């Protein structure tokens, strides 16, 4: 992404940081633990809905694309297409070691490349799986950065 696009994104995103709509995508090659920890965020103990964060059912409504999984050949096309369908400005968050760089499946024959060689990633949340607290921490950091706070 070039710098101009980033500035526009920052302006528009500032308006969105009150309430983030999140589309959760598992792009294959995943053990689902990260997906479950993300769903866990909705449950009473963590309850991210009180921050205004909501999971939506269509990528066209999303501000944030939350991606898990190590990206298999079958899923690569879909990942790219979904990213294109997202209305910009949008933020891409990679959750878990697999989404960061294929994790323990780095040497496999069915995982072509790390995710960020396919689509640009704005936020990396490491862990296998990252604890729900870590995911919240990551998103809060992102929101603060977009708002221009330190």
């Amino acid at each position, binding site marked *: 992404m070039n710098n101009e696009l980033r500035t526009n994104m920052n302006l528009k995103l500032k308006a969105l940081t009150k309430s983030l709509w999140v589309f959760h995508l598992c792009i294959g090659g995943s053990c689902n633990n990260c997906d479950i920890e993300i769903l866990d965020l909705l449950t009473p103990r963590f309850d991210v809905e009180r921050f205004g964060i909501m999971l939506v059912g269509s990528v066209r409504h999303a501000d944030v694309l939350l991606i898990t999984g190590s990206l*298999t*050949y*079958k899923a690569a096309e879909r990942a790219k297409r979904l990213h294109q369908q997202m209305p910009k400005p949008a933020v891409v968050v990679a959750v878990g070691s697999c989404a960061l760089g294929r994790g323990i499946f780095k040497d496999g*024959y*069915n995982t072509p490349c790390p995710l960020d060689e396919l689509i640009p990633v704005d936020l990396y949340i490491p862990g296998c799986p990252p604890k729900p607290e870590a995911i919240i921490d990551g998103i809060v950091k992102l929101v603060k950065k977009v708002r221009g706070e330190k």
Partner: protein
Amino acid sequence: MSILDEIKQRLKDKIGDWYEHNPRRIYFSVDKKEIKEAARVLFKDLGLRFATATGTDTPQGFEILYHFSFDKTGQMVSVRTLIEDKHNPQIDSLAVISPAFEWIEREIWEMLGIKFIGHPNLKRLLLADDWPEGKYPLRQR
């Protein structure tokens, strides 16, 4: 009669090597043209449950191990068969005996390139549709 004695009685001289690693792990080999009969005896006649099949690329040829479980005693009976022709490997499909064999035969076909004769639906299971032809991930090159 124990289940092992029953197997020996029904398959008689079709059985090649017989090896008991311990009371609950038994391995025996059959010629590949007898595999349908062996599977029918174990699955249909004696009521063992089909667990899965392992295909391996060995220097002697492609080896397929069919693993059956006799749940009453917890014994695993594995039937070994060897396909010596590595250029055009084929074997009878067991999917005609039961749908439980369908998926694993598709997987062995796409991983090792072994053709299962008579399989109703031999198409890709795990690999992408545009995975290059002739490249079999589990072959030792």
